[in-house]
């Protein structure tokens, strides 16, 4: 529909902001334009919206060069919502949306009833029909964004360009605007290109992402193919974890914990703590201990378990076992060594099955060897046991012997205390 072909562009006198950028915005699809600050996102929209003439390359609308058509002709096909949606005049919302009819109304003609109907329909689509008679000076930021989109829709465009449509909007309005755009895309077959700052929002709503870095297209494709930890690290210079949304399968980002460096940690006499966990129960305590500067080890965790993933991501020494497998003698021995080497042992509340029974034995062994053992969280031996009795017995014994700490903060306080 709208295609940038080998576009090099920049502002007068300056170095080029975009270098040989190719991009294609297809109908019925939201294409997200993402990238760090200063990567050329807004410049790309300005080039695509006929506001900035490329130095080299061309922008084609249905295979016609946009600089060979008049601004009016272009405005009938392409609507733009710029970052600044402020209207400095005391116009009614309806009058502002009617300005969207400008390219369709002849020079000395007046807007007709049909134009007014089109404007009202656009306001209804954006859920802003009730604002029609209000002054634009007296509506909120979220309402103004909807009015700006309604004005763009009144143009009846084939292509809609949005420059940060969710900037300055709260969570509810962000979702509202994005789902509005998505339904327009679906129902009217409009080609939408949106500059988005929030990568999670972009990955959740766009069918395609174009990643810009220093004015070049770094990646282009569906979010699941484009978003990766290495790309985010490379382009944004940010350590993030990429996970899948379990409901949609789309990627989303989480801030990654800082890496654990055994040599640097434990300075100032902080003890070495061994964490016995599993099933995702160890994450919070492991990252809290690392954050507080303790040296940590961990075991036995199954490969693929989120606790094991965390240990690997943070470089925490740990005893690992194959996925969904019972603890083998080798990994049990590794765990035992790590526990006995540590100054303290923490056991988290995990479910006990035949496979990980040995973890409890190691904890009790460490206790017998004189290591302080902490049991973190609430642990009801009857409920956590899936072994048919043996686990319950071990848990009851551990409950009696170990020091019980309800929350991580309490554990940290007790570990920090110099005396045992």
């Amino acid at each position, binding site marked *: 529909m709208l295609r940038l072909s080998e576009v090099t562009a920049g*502002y*007068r*006198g300056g170095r080029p902001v975009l270098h040989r950028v190719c991009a294609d915005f297809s109908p019925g699809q939201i294409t997200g334009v993402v990238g760090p600050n200063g990567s050329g996102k807004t410049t790309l929209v300005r080039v695509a*919206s*006929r*506001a900035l003439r490329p130095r080299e390359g061309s922008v084609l609308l249905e295979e016609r060069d946009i600089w060979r058509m*008049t*601004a*009016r*002709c*272009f*405005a*009938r096909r*392409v*609507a*733009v919502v*710029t970052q*600044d*949606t*402020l*209207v*400095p*005049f*005391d*116009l009614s919302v309806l*009058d502002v949306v*009617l*300005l*969207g009819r*400008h*390219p369709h*109304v002849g*020079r*000395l003609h*007046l*807007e*007709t*009833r*049909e*134009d*007014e109907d089109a404007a009202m329909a656009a306001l209804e689509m954006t859920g802003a029909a009730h604002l029609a008679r209000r002054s634009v000076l007296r509506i909120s930021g979220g309402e103004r964004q909807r009015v700006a989109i309604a004005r*763009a829709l009144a*143009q009846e465009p084939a292509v809609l360009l949005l420059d940060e449509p969710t900037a300055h909007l709260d969570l509810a309005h962000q979702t509202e605007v994005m789902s509005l755009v998505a339904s327009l895309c679906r129902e009217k077959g409009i080609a939408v290109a949106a500059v988005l700052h929030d990568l999670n929002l972009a990955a959740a709503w766009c069918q395609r992402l174009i990643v810009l870095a220093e004015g070049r297209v770094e990646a282009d494709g569906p979010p699941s193919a484009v978003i990766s930890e290495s790309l985010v690290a490379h382009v944004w210079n940010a350590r993030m974890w990429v996970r899948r949304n379990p409901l949609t399968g789309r990627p989303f980002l989480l801030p990654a914990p800082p890496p654990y460096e055994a040599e640097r940690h434990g300075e100032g006499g902080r003890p070495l703590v061994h964490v016995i966990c599993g099933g995702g129960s160890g994450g919070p305590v492991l990252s809290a201990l690392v954050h507080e500067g303790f040296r940590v080890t961990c075991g036995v965790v199954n490969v693929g378990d989120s606790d094991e993933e965390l240990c690997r991501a943070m470089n925490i020494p740990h005893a690992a076992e194959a996925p969904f497998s019972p603890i083998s003698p080798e990994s049990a021995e590794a765990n035992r060594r790590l526990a006995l080497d540590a100054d303290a042992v923490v056991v988290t509340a995990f479910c006990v099955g035949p496979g990980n029974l040995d973890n409890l034995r190691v904890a009790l062994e460490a206790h017998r060897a004189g290591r302080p053992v902490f049991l973190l969280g609430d642990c009801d031996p009857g409920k956590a046991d899936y072994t048919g009795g043996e686990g319950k017995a071990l848990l009851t014994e551990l409950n009696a012997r170990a020091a019980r700490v309800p929350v991580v903060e309490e554990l940290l306080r007790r570990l920090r205390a110099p005396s045992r």
Partner: protein
Amino acid sequence: MKARSALRKRLVLAAAIPAFLLAACFFTALWTGAVGVGPAEALGQLASHLTGRAGPETSIIWDLRLPRILLAAVVGAVLAAGGAALQGLLGNPLAEPYTAGVSSGCVLGASLAVILGLDSIAGGWAVPVAAFVTGLAAVGLVFSLARRAGGLDINTFLLAGIIVGAFFWALTTFALSLAREDIARIFMWLAGSFAAPYPWEYLRMASLPALVCLAGLFWNARDLNAFALGEDQARTLGVEPERLKAAVILLTTLGTAACVSAAGVIGFAGLIVPHGMRRVFGPDHRPLLVSSALCGACLLVLADALARGLAPPREVPVGVITSIIGAPVFLWILSRRRA
């Protein structure tokens, strides 16, 4: 394809009310002056001239008052509509037709022409033509100063207009200080007056540029509406900002230069009339330009009638009257705005 009823109503009101006022002002002005001419006699003279039954003797109504009133109406319409358009284009409530330096340019040209003794040659056309040319030259200078590679910079344009205007005023004052005997004649340019020595000629000279200016501004009225959103947003609605800026500046300059050449510098009309009309008919430039043009005409026709009628047979400069009326009215508008 019927026009929106709300818009049509607004346009009809914006044209009808000021048109009615203008008719009232026209007749009031027709029987105001140093020589008492009753309404019936005035209309009689007018009718006989229009039907071609008039004799060759000079008529106060036909040869003096009518062209004066028409010139005042034309000048008022151009100044007020030009002010409305420039305020919209420059996004500045202080903008008026003289902002770009056209008035000081015109005054310099007129002063030089008078000092050089050109006012008696070419049937009285030399002075207004000289004024017109220097007025255009002043704006041309401002325009070229504000030109950037990316287009015309509005703020630079405003600043350059003030500076160039001040410079031309200084040159005019310098010229005046050298030519004492012509000061009285030049004073009429500085203060504004419709007491032109050749009223029909001046009206004819001002009419064509004025008509082009008014028609051109109205042609661009909806573009000005879109432009009020800012250059970037206007562009997305199909407006070419650079073309619009050049067109509006050229059109107002053309019209204003013609007006100042014919009647001197008449202040405040181009500033307050658009502000008043915006309050009454809203910011849409279509009703705004129509009502501003008509009310601007009313204001100057009335001001000229006062100029002639206040202290006959002496005349008060019309620019003095517009400023004396304009300043308090403008202050009143300002105080209402804050409330």
